[in-house]
């Protein structure tokens, strides 16, 4: 399998166009962006001008050094020492997501968010959204004052007027928000209700799971999103449920799922994941078996799966049209039944009936009480599509006297939002607490901007029984006020929200509430010991099947499938440049959304530009009378007949970074009596004739045929031979004998007397989420370069995740695929539904580093701790090192990205407010120097210093790189290879020879081992849980 398997990074590589070959041969796609004289070359006069300016500048600089001030605190807070970081446990809460986090502050400024290891809702993991949220605090486009009808005002005035109006208005008060899981917020709203009587609270979710909640409401008697425990599942079937990329508690889902994928000498079993979906999602790309389906098939896939499982269970089957190709479903059903009690079926459908069938399947599989815990629910999703629809009709009918939009933006992220906003004229008092002049606020009279979560007190109960606390880590930057405090003021309650929360916590405290509260504040959460409610599900599948409507076995026409991507997410943080520049894990595109279409269909319909460079044809998609226009990207794995489009883009009033990026997919969400629908049939895609560039990060830089960068196998092979899938390159010596690369060397080697830092990347655990990329960007002051520069292939991320597609083994190809192959479209068959591998790639910290030998000024050198050091102040920018780097991980500063109006989207470096997020321990690099991953040397140095101050050796785990710390799946393990007790030493089973270190773990390999550059980063082979001799044929 190894020899024949082919990997490719994108369609252009598969097609191997002339343009692609041309680019692949170059380290840098273009040369220095300095334009010379008229003919292009710098003239002699230019040279003299530059020279004269240079001399003048140097002499001026030499004359007088600028006077710099040192300004101490007037009154130094006891627990703040300039230069020493403080860490506070808190809770991330933006949009409708909540995560338990630890906030790192320096001199009172939050600069980094990390996961809270103690909390059971995140277990130390974070997501891209969480990592980025610290920059949203320093967003200069947040509102700086309360506003009445667009004019700045003060709190006293606005409170007075709001209170008068709320009391005088006839009709009810409607509070609209995303799902609220904060007990104290609910109490604050209750306080309003106590004062003004008829106060209703409408909750919705930008990406609704109302169908799932209603289904559990029918099946158990209470609407809830029960906790799924992926760590207990050995067979998982996902039908369009992107639980790794779009579900609530993503970080925990990733962690739990990855824990079932870890392999080692003591654990040779892993879970198996089946995915049936339209768009290639993060979950689908991690699946062992993936089948593309159209959204209109979802209901029948679930029904057919129900029947297959019911047959085995001896339960009654239901009437549902049989799908044509059920081979994969049968296989899935077999596996599910075999592992019943440890099986899990999840669906992403927002159709209550589909979800009810899924509940029925899980019930047959004995999932309740094992992989699904009915006593614990995820409270971050409570939205109800019907109550929102009711609100809209109430507003239209004039039944609502006042509306309070509490931190939500329905005009943008709800398909009925536009209707709601346009009829706001019938509401006497409109209030919003949003932090910026967003799409909804523009039609609102009173704006009382809320604090950012890093400035707020709050409590949340994201999972039943697990209450997390939020504490301010900075004083409010602007004249904002916590929304809950506003509610209390309007309810004539003068308590501070902090006191109000504490009061609510009184019942939990055994004695003194203050000391109890402080302890919880330190940990960040409190787990309530409540007896688990004994809940059961009951679903009459036959009745449900009768209600299943609108699904067809053989879909026709084009269907739209709306999804949430892992970078911008639901669009709440669309003005965050870190998220905008974070490439989508699958398409590797950033700064845009686009239609993803099937490759074969694209070629049939001529939707693709032939041989272009990130050029995509623009088309208008029309569905249910609404249309949007965006570029069309042929996407491997996309189901034939479907078009994918991500939400979160197309903001018009998010701020200068997010405005006008992409198109708004929420407008296409269908709404009917059955709730919202994120897919639609009978779509049309019409080319506009335009061609647009979409910035993608993985279109150049190939490994030029060296396919062994990915080494993978199947579980069966691995169980037989732990070295399965490994490649052992041999080097020919002069005498004709062949030896392993480490046996010959031109190099003298290094001695590492003290530490020897290294990293493991487990390809089997990595789900490709990209959280490490943002964590690294935050930690290391990596500039945002913007769409233009990404198009020029000058992105600066130090750690990237290479996404490789590969062909599925032939025995897995469907008959449809085989027909394609007969018509000599083997490539197309391969991309129809490829396997996906994610490979995080960062500086490999080679012991025999090729970059070091070519630097003419010794700006990159080797340290006695195994680090490949990059000294910015010595670098003169020859870029020889990048040319000589086999891993292509060096990044060149083509421009001055800080204090440069041309890069004003790079907000962390271009205004005083944004700069507060910069890590003061890391240099902001100048134009013309090379940079790359340093293994977070600032963290290593600081960890060592802490140990020295205490007169001890650093403990394993104490020193962590930002990427390893953020990784929700523990795919990245960093540590000291000289410490025999460290996790890395034990996992790799290191063997030390005189001047080198070898890993004896069977799965560990070096990328491009044949080059003998001896990296300090080890990769562990990818193992897919596939049966060796699948005969999957119709």
């Amino acid at each position, binding site marked *: 399998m190894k020899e024949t398997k082919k990997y490719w990074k994108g369609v252009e590589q598969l097609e191997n166009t002339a343009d692609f070959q041309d680019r692949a041969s170059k380290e840098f796609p273009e040369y220095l962006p300095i334009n010379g004289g008229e003919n292009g070359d710098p003239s002699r006069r230019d040279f003299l001008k530059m020279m004269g300016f240079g001399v003048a500048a140097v002499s001026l600089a030499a004359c007088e*050094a600028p006077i710099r001030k*040192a300004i*101490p605190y007037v*009154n*130094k807070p006891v627990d703040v020492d*300039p230069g020493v970081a403080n860490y506070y446990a808190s809770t991330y809460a933006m949009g409708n997501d909540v995560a338990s986090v630890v906030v790192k502050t320096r001199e009172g400024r939050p600069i980094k968010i990390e996961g809270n290891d103690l909390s059971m809702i995140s277990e130390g993991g974070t997501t891209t959204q969480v990592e980025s949220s610290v920059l949203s605090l320093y967003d200069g486009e947040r509102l700086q004052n309360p506003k009445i009808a667009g004019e700045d005002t003060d709190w006293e005035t606005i409170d007075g007027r709001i209170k008068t109006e709320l009391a005088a208005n006839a009709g009810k008060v409607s509070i609209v928000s995303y799902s609220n899981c904060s007990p104290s917020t609910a109490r604050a709203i209750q306080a309003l209700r106590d004062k003004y009587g008829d106060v209703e609270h409408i909750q919705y979710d930008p990406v609704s799971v109302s169908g799932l909640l209603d289904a559990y409401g029918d099946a158990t008697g209470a609407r809830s999103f029960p906790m799924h425990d992926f760590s207990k599942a050995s067979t998982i079937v996902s039908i369009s449920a992107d639980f790794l990329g779009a579900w609530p508690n993503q970080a925990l889902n990733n962690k739990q799922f990855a824990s079932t994928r870890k392999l080692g000498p003591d654990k040779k079993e892993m879970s198996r994941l089946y995915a049936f979906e339209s768009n290639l999602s993060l979950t689908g790309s991690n699946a062992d078996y993936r089948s593309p389906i159209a959204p209109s098939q979802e209901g029948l896939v679930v029904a057919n799966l129900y029947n297959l499982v019911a047959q085995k269970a001896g339960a009654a089957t239901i009437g549902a049209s049989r799908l044509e190709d059920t081979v994969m479903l049968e296989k899935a059903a077999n596996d599910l039944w075999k592992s019943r009690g440890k099986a899990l079926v999840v669906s992403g459908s927002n159709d209550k009936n589909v979800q009810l069938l899924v509940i029925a399947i899980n019930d047959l599989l004995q999932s309740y009480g094992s992989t699904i815990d009915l006593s614990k629910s995820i409270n971050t999703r409570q939205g109800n599509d019907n109550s929102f629809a009711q609100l809209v009709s109430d507003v239209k009918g004039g039944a609502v006297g006042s509306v309070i939009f509490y931190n939500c933006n329905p005009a943008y992220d709800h398909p009925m939002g536009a209707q709601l906003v346009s009829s706001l004229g019938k509401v006497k008092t409109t209030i919003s607490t949003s932090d910026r002049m967003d799409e909804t606020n523009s039609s609102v009279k009173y704006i009382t901007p809320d604090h950012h979560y890093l400035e707020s007190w709050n409590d949340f109960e994201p999972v039943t029984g697990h209450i997390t606390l939020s504490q301010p880590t900075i004083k409010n930057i602007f004249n904002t006020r916590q929304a809950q405090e506003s509610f209390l003021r309007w309810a004539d309650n003068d308590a501070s929200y902090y006191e109000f929360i504490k009061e609510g916590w009184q019942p939990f405290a055994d004695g003194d509430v203050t000391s109890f509260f402080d302890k919880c504040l330190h940990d960040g959460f409190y787990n309530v010991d409540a007896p688990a409610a004994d809940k059961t599900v009951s679903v009459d599948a036959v009745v449900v099947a009768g209600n299943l409507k609108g699904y067809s076995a053989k879909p026709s026409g084009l269907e739209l499938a709306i999804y949430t991507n892992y970078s911008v997410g639901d669009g709440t943080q669309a003005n965050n440049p870190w998220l905008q520049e974070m490439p989508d894990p699958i398409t590797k595109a950033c700064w845009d959304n686009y239609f993803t279409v099937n490759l074969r269909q694209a070629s049939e319909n001529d939707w693709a530009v032939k041989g272009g460079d990130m050029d995509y044809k623009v088309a208008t998609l029309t569905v249910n009378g609404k249309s949007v226009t965006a570029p069309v990207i042929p996407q491997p794995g996309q189901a034939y007949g479907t078009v994918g489009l991500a939400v979160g883009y197309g903001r018009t009033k998010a701020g200068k970074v997010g405005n006008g990026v992409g198109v708004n997919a929420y407008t296409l969400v269908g709404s009917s009596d059955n709730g919202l629908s994120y897919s639609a049939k009978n779509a049309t895609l019409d080319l506009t004739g335009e061609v647009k560039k979409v910035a993608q990060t993985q279109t150049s830089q190939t490994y030029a045929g060296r396919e062994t960068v990915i080494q993978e196998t199947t579980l069966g092979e691995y169980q037989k031979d732990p070295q399965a899938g490994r490649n052992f390159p041999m080097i020919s010596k002069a005498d004709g004998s062949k030896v392993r690369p480490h046996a010959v060397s031109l190099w003298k080697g290094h001695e590492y007397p003290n530490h020897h830092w290294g990293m493991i990347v487990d390809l089997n655990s990595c789900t490709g989420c990209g959280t490490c990329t943002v964590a690294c960007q935050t930690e290391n002051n990596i500039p945002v370069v913007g769409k233009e520069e990404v198009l020029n292939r000058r992105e600066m991320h130090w750690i990237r995740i290479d996404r490789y597609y590969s062909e599925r083994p032939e025995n897995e190809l469907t008959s449809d695929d085989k027909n394609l192959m007969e018509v000599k479209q083997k490539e197309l068959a391969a991309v129809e539904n490829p396997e996906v591998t994610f490979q995080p790639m960062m500086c490999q910290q080679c012991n025999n580093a090729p970059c070091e030998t070519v630097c003419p000024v010794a700006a990159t050198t080797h340290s006695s701790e195994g680090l490949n050091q990059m000294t910015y102040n010595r670098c003169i920018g020859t870029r020889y090192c990048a040319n000589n780097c086999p891993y292509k991980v060096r990044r060149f500063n083509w421009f001055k990205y800080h204090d440069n109006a041309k890069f004003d989207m790079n907000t962390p470096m271009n205004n005083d407010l944004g700069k507060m997020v910069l890590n003061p321990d890391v240099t902001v690099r100048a134009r013309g120097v090379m940079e790359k991953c340093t293994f977070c040397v600032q963290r290593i140095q600081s960890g060592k210093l802490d140990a020295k101050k205490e007169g001890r050796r650093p403990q394993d785990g104490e020193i962590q790189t930002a990427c390893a710390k953020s990784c929700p799946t523990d795919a990245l393990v960093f540590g000291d290879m000289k410490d025999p007790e460290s996790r890395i030493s034990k996992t790799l089973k290191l063997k030390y020879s005189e001047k080198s270190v070898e890993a004896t773990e069977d799965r560990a390999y070096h990328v491009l081992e044949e080059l003998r550059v001896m990296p300090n980063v080890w990769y562990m082979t990818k193992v897919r849980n596939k049966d060796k001799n699948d005969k999957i044929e119709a």
Partner: protein
Amino acid sequence: MLLLYAFDLKSSEYMFKTTPNLTKIFLGIAFGIFTTMSLNAQEIPTDESVVAAGEATFNANCTQCHRIWEVRIGPALNGVSERRSVEWLNSWIKNSQALIASGDEEAVALYEEYDKTLMQAFPFSDDQVMEILAYIKAETAKGPPAEDTTATTAEGEGDSISSSYLMSIIIILVVVLGLAVVALIIAARTLVRHLKDAKGLDEAEQEVVSQQFDVSAFLKSNNFVGLVVFVFTILVLKTLIDGAFTIGVQQGYQPEQPIAFSHEIHAGQYEIDCQYCHTGVNKSKSANIPSPNICMNCHTQVKTESEEIQKIYAAIDYDPETKTYGTNTKPIEWVRIHNLPDLAYFNHSQHVNVADLECETCHGPIKEMEVVYQYSSLTMGWCINCHRDTDVNTKGNEYYDKLVKLHSEQSKEPMKVEDIGGLECAKCHY
């Protein structure tokens, strides 16, 4: 630029509180009444190893307040074992407060003499006390050190001493050379005169003898012009290069500060520990410029009328009449003296806490500075030189144990910072 963003966290009120170990007050010893207890003195050992051990303990624990030949916060200790009994010293060192409380006359007298400054209790063993006394005795026997070496000697001074020495040798050599040249010229002239008088010289020889040195021809000769141009070019180049090296080097930089704070008075005259104000020096990368609330610990009482102190009051909005604080505060904008470039990472705690360096090593005679100036050049060469010369302070620090062992297997020299990667780029540049 060290901009300290004065955002206060959860609460807006902070207590005036400093780290307790910094406010520890030290106790002094005085020379009171003469008592000759020579018998006891004889018991003090004189072994070299004991003296060495005593020196280490003394330097680690006592030098904050004591010197052998000099009165600091506490008295000079020369001959202390002559003046007091070993038992008395033993109990005094271990717990002076108990001794004072017991009403011991000598102890009380000493306490009074040194302005009721308490000496902290040291948990030494009897042997350790004997070692310290042995060291003090050995130092006493050596006699007071020469005047110029008592102060903390800085590298720069050492250099100038040796160079002036060199200079005098050169001057002597030049004088000797000059005399020799004069003697040679006189000899040559005499010889020429004799040859002119001599007979029997042929024409060629005659010409050589009567040759005149033509100065103007020499000055115009290519050789001479070339030499002058060469020397001139070298000199210009040297000046330029030397000048280039001083770009950005602000050694001696002594800006005027918004408040005329004198280190000479505070650190010198009153011997206030540096860490009392520079609280970050042991735990942070920056030593911290004290916030005015630290000043107020004393200046609510001391020199309240002074014009300079009024500036502190203005900054912290303190009303000396009513002794109350207002809210109209504005931070003091000190002019930063030591400016490392942003590309260099420096951490005070590494040097002061881990390496146990004295502040004066880099900051110079700070206790004599009325107005602080930049004493060291703060160039990379200066850092590197120190890392080459300085032994790593490995004592009692488990972090270094394995490194010391490895080093001692390979070398007999003490382990320098350089030997454990102290010259590597990424130690300071990242």
